[in-house]
């Protein structure tokens, strides 16, 4: 975007399609102003919800041809895996390995339970066809793939009548020759057939995980294509000319065209854009270390931002399936607002894992739910305003009390005590899971700011922070639509991998430059197709390394200078240092293996104009009213503030409540809130 573009609006539109609502976030790139709102999701055809929202924008006078970027997150891919509504596809594997999907990595989800089972494979065994061929480590051909064998397989596929074919052969990440022969022959026979090869989808060693992402990519494709086509129709009709982008699991974006062939990359796009949104807010507010807390009706998820960078994972889970395409690392810490409280056989109060979800939802929604939930406890404790709750017209305090009454007898407590008890147990449960996330990474909570979003995140954030020892909470201006904000803060981004699996020690053994060149080439081609001309492009190179004998790798950023012959020493040094940082020890004398090389292509979109948004004020904010809330120590009168009325630099003490359209912020006794120049609420513990 040029500086002279101020005549044109230059909108960026971010959309997040959730289970209940479709969130819109329209950013005016000239001045940084954001317009956020929600429309109901249309589960049968999510593109209809998008059409409805575009109509709202048009009514507000937003020119559709003024939208330069259109980015959105989708759960199409995720839902078709979880609900098993994907296509009928076949899988081709190396002979002798037909049960690659069924055997998986063996381990049972709950190892000691008689009835625990691994998830049923997405493809039944009769659609898994063994192919007579074999490559060795390094891609050397051990058994040729004969043309007769190719013909046999193609005939059989034709006979089976499938919607797509996934191919994953042993060691194909080193040498795709046999996968390509099969793919070409299948396409020769039927050019309309969709074929994914593991070498194209994600060429990384580990046959089960690679086969799985290849299968998922094939399995979800027809639904993705159908959706993208309908979306294009909606945009054409509305007059939106911008190229539509989708968010992806790595926190970046890609065009809908790319998403047709790489649907697996969108599996975790929704939660990832929330984290990107939170990281963007944290960065602008000046916090480089943040923990993000996204708590909605059914789950509470956390992610880590360290030194300004979002923590990635090379293996996330969808249901019980491991997914090895790079994703933002998001951990569930359990309960959402809909989690149900109950009393076990010994009389002890428990919360979850059962959830009332969005339908029927908590008892206070008065939609037929009768079991007591965390949201009911919030309402009875005075945290929520019954007449003003995100997306609901009115909450029923009576229904909430009635539900809590179920537990009052067994616990010998009154309604309010039951509500406090549920909140205490919820926080203790979240504490256990959250601590585990921190311990695994060796992080000290005192170094972090908690970024709270989602409908319930800001309600519970300070209480949770207090328990964990996080000194500060940040609540963004629009915590309910942060995923949509994340969508427009994201960069065009794709990852490319090449498995090496050789010792690093023998200098000159691996020509790193030659190994990386094809990755860079693919990355550059991808960016040319995907990124707008205005994007600033760059490439990040990294390597996964480990000590011989380990099976967990550590990722190291590679400096170009290290790729020359003799640079292995520098790479090893960086690895020892990072290993020491992560695990508190390193072994500089030990042998190191280079497992994977990675290239990330990034197309950075031009920055957004505007600075501090609102006039500041040093006057004490005036509460709209006061309300009694219940804390663990007892009932207190809390000042109630309107979020819209708060101005930068204004400060106030807890106990206080801040009400806004999409959430409620609880500032407990002992915490002090202030408003930053970007209208974020910064809530700090007074106990230090």
């Amino acid at each position, binding site marked *: 975007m040029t500086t002279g573009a101020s005549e044109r609006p230059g909108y960026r539109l971010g959309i997040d399609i959730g289970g209940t609502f479709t969130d819109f976030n329209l950013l005016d790139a000239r001045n940084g102003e954001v317009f956020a709102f929600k429309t109901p999701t249309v589960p049968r055809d999510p593109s209809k919800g998008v059409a409805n929202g575009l109509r709202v924008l048009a009514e507000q006078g937003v020119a559709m041809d003024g939208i330069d970027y259109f980015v959105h997150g989708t759960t199409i891919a995720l839902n078709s895996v979880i609900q098993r509504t994907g296509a009928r596809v076949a899988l081709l594997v190396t002979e*002798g*390995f*037909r*049960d690659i999907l*069924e*055997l998986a*990595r*063996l*381990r*049972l989800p*709950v*190892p*000691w*339970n*008689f*009835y*625990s*089972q*691994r998830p049923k494979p997405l493809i*039944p*065994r*009769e659609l898994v066809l063994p192919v007579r061929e*074999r490559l*060795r*480590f390094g891609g050397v051909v051990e058994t040729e793939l004969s043309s007769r064998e190719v013909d046999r397989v193609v005939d059989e596929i034709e006979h089976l009548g499938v919607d797509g074919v996934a191919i994953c052969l*042993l060691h194909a990440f080193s040498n795709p020759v046999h996968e390509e022969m099969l793919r070409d022959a299948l396409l020769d026979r039927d050019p309309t057939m969709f074929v994914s090869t593991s070498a194209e989808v994600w060429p990384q*060693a*580990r*046959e*089960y*995980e690679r086969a799985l992402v290849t299968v998922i990519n094939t399995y979800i494709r027809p639904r993705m294509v159908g959706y993208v086509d309908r979306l294009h129709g909606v945009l054409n009709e509305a007059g939106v000319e911008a190229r539509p982008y989708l968010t992806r699991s790595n926190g970046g974006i890609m065009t809908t065209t790319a998403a047709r062939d790489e649907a697996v990359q969108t599996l975790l796009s929704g939660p990832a854009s929330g984290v990107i949104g939170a990281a963007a807010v944290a960065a602008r507010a000046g916090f480089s270390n943040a923990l993000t807390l996204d708590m909605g009706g059914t789950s509470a998820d956390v992610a880590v931002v360290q030194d300004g960078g979002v923590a990635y994972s090379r293996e996330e889970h969808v249901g019980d399936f491991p997914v090895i395409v790079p994703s933002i690392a998001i951990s569930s810490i359990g309960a959402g607002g809909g989690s149900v409280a109950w*009393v*076990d*056989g*010994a*009389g*002890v*109060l428990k919360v979850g894992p059962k959830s009332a979800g969005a339908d029927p939802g908590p008892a206070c929604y008065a939609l037929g739910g009768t079991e007591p939930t965390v949201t009911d406890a919030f309402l009875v404790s005075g945290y929520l305003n019954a007449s003003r709750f995100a997306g609901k017209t009115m909450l029923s305090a009576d229904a909430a009390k009635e539900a809590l009454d179920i537990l009052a007898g*067994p616990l010998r*407590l009154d309604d309010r005590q039951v509500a406090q*008890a549920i909140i205490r*147990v919820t926080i*203790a*449960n979240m*504490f*256990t899971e959250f*601590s*585990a996330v921190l*311990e*695994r990474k*060796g992080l000290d909570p005192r170094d972090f700011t908690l970024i709270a979003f989602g409908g319930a995140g800001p309600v519970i954030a300070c209480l949770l922070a207090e328990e964990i020892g996080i000194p500060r909470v940040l609540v963004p201006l629009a915590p309910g639509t942060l995923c949509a904000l994340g969508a427009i803060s994201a960069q065009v981004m794709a990852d490319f991998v090449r498995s090496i699996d050789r010792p690093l020690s023998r200098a000159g053994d691996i020509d790193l430059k030659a190994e990386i060149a094809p990755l860079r080439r693919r990355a550059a081609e991808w960016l040319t197709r995907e990124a707008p001309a205005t994007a600033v492009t760059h490439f990040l190179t990294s390597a996964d390394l480990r000590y011989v*004998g*380990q*099976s*967990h790798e550590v990722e190291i950023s590679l400096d170009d200078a290290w790729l020359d012959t003799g640079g292995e020493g520098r790479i090893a040094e960086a690895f020892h240092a990072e290993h020491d940082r*992560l*695990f*508190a*020890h390193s*072994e500089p004398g030990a042998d190191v293996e280079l497992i994977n090389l990675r290239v990330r292509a990034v197309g950075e979109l031009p920055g957004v104009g505007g600075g501090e948004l609102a006039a500041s004020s040093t006057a004490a904010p005036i509460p709209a009213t006061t309300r009694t809330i219940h804390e663990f120590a007892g009932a207190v009168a809390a000042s109630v503030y309107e979020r819209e009325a708060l101005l930068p630099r204004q400060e106030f003490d807890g106990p206080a409540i801040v009400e806004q359209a999409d959430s409620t912020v609880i500032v407990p006794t002992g915490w002090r809130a202030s408003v930053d120049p970007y209208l974020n609420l910064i809530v700090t513990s007074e106990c230090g």
Partner: protein
Amino acid sequence: MTAFRTDPVTLEVLKSHFVAVAEGMGYTLERTAHTTFIKESADFATGLATLQGEFFAFPRTIGVSSFLGIDMGPTLGRFSSWAPGDIGITNDPYLSNGLATHLPDIHMFSPLFHQDELFGFAWCFIHCSDVGGLVPASIAPEARDIQQEGLRIPPRKLYDGGRLDESFLELFLANSRTPTENWGDFKAMIAALRTAETRFATVVDKYGPGTVKDAMADMLDWSEEAVRALVREVPDGSYRFSDYLDGDMEGIPIRLAVTLEVHGDEATVDFTGTDPQVQAAFNLPACGARHPFLFQGLINYVLSENPDIPLAAGLVRPFHVIAPAGTVVNPIPPAAVGIRYATVFRLYNAVLGALAQAVPDKVPAAGCGAGSMVVLSSPRMDSSGRHVVVIEPLKGGGGASINQDGTAGTDSDGGFLRNTPVESIEAHVPVLVERYELLPDSAGAGRHRGGWGTCLEFRVELPDSIVTARGMERCRFEPWGLRGGQASIRTQAFVTDGQSGERRVVGRINVLQLGPGDVVSLWASGGAGYGDPLERELGLIEADIRSELLSPSQAETYGVVFSEDGQIDASATGARRTALAGHASTAAPLFDLGPSRREYERVWSDAQSSALVEFLMELPIGLRSFAKREIHLRIDSLGLEATQETMRAIWSDYEEKLRGFVHEVAPSVSAIVA
């Protein structure tokens, strides 16, 4: 409802905090551990114990769960006092009364103080790379006594008031083949204990000493009461069952006999009649204690019936154990114990076989009943040493249960095991894996069939290669089916010669010497079936046939009739099933023990094996293995009836000779023989 000291809300809150401390230890240990074994196979555990040595907090998400319920009390009892900064250490099964169960498991524990008050202990263990002994990694099936298995560390202090005992450490590390790795892992354990000490003190600060102490005691009562409630639902009675390990190094089956006495809300597991300890590494040093390794089946049963039971040692309190000294489940030192987990796997079957008689709806049929580590040792090309690498942990299928088929390729007795990707094996080990998939026709038939077994075949690439499969079992007797469900098949092993292409059966693998081109085939049995195969839904049978894991000929077990187009003919099948069901005049027996065991028990019935054990237990420990083998061989080769008179007659030949020998050498011992 249980009468707790703490209120039911505070208890749940403190439970979360306790578990957070225990899991925090686990993550610290995993993150900072040096060796692969700990990071990859997660063979470690952490926990918090009371002053009496009962675990009141145990992680759910990290480490192994089978140590829950082990009593630290006797180990703690060996120390006269504790001060802040102390850390205790042991690996000795006999001197820790079964806290440790083989020497590679190093246990450490430290006192949890708040100000000057001692609250309990933090504990952790790791399976360490090597503690000396006969072979690298310290585990050898052929070990004849524990001294051959490595260095024993009696319970002692590693740190005294924060001061490391360096001379002890030096001694220990000098006796290990992997001193650097061991010390690295020790440091991770120390870090985990120190984390627990600090974090536990924070919890006491926050909730107060009285409340914390009450909650610790309540955690135990809570888990105990939850289990009592489940035991109460099991009908009172005495339930007897036995099962076998393939054999000691002499090849004679090792019988594990269990009598489960259920009375009200308590149960006693009585191992009287179990075979004497063996001169091989299969002995389980439970030391006569209420050791959870003895009844892992009962623990998994209660955790399956009520998944919300808090993981605390109270859950073993309703159980009692009778394990006669000198048996394989309570060996007398210096019995070797390295592969005691093979025995734990079979005890799982034996205990569940007893329980199945009480609650047949709630117990699965037997699964493959083993988990073997397939290891290749081959010469290094770049130095004089040898590579020793685990190729895969091999498990077969799980047993079927009332509502579902068994799991393919693994079971709830070792559901924590993970396999290794073939692409990763081939990058690091000189082998070519030719087949790693499910084994057709390997599952026991039933209304629900067993889980499919597993087949692993690999070609050895280098000369002078050695393959071992420690813990390989079920090569002799089939896993048993329940309530009309059929037994499955035995585990098998073959070697195909690289030169001649000839295939030979090798039975249970001890040590295979192999050369380039030789192919090793391991076929791990499937699980057994549950319920009458004639009642299996036709749709499920069709699906199994479509998947090509069930052959049409094998499908006839289910009474199906195929029409000419190869499809199942539903009406003909119905008629055939009715006819077959009519044939069976009486209801199916509870167990299908399988053809091999039925054949074996024609000579060695329950009564006869018990008679032999009774007789053997009269002999000195050192003679029992020998006597057992001689009596078995004589009875089997001469086709005699296995009565106690015959046994005594056979033994009397030896007794004469031995008596003289004993008199000459050590007269004082003759009293024992007499």
